């Protein structure tokens, strides 16, 4: 179980393992509303997902359309390719074969990744606002 003070934004260090076995532990936002985990395109590329840097349109991603979802944001629509990480873990909690978007988060946020539902749905996640505690178990 992970239990830590709940602050805003809810950040922790999560470990992402690519198909090649490369592991990167990154400052990560816990975001239950996000359907997918997210990591930067360069990290995805280093982990063995070559398509992460083929950003000249869906044809160039060489992926089926269902692996390049459109994302609605407050400023418009974006598309990003999905790839499957071998494992994502936080402490002793881990999930295998986690679908993840390769998408560059704004540098100014100083975060490198997002834990979305493709990881969080494997666990009970509690945002206890009264006790100011975040728990994953």
């Amino acid at each position: 179980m992970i239990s830590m003070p709940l602050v805003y934004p809810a950040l922790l260090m999560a470990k992402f393992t690519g198909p090649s076995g490369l592991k990167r532990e990154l400052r990560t936002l816990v975001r239950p509303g996000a359907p997918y985990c997210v990591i930067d395109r360069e990290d995805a590329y280093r982990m063995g997902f070559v398509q992460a840097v083929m950003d000249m349109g869906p044809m160039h991603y060489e992926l089926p359309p269902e692996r390049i979802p459109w994302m609605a944001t407050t400023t418009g629509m974006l598309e990003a390719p999905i790839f499957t990480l071998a494992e994502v873990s936080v402490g002793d909690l881990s999930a295998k074969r986690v679908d993840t978007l390769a998408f560059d988060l704004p540098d100014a946020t100083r975060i490198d990744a997002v834990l979305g539902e493709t990881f969080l749905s494997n666990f009970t996640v509690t945002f206890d606002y009264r006790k100011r505690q975040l728990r994953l178990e």
Partner: protein
Amino acid sequence: MSSEEDVLTMAEATQEYPEEWLAMRVTRRDSNGQPMEGVVIAHDKDKRLIRTSTIREREICIFYAGQSPVWVMI
């Protein structure tokens, strides 16, 4: 680059390399598995260059040493 002996806490590393991106080999963790101490093997102001300079590392922790600007996600 730092020598292998230079084990720093996360706070010490942040103080040593303010407002830089750090690549750290973690040597100690807390009860939540979060990094507590490690050896800084690279640091750079550029988020991309820190990736390039650690390309041969199989397992590494990368983080920004400093406060994030105040922001909210909507």
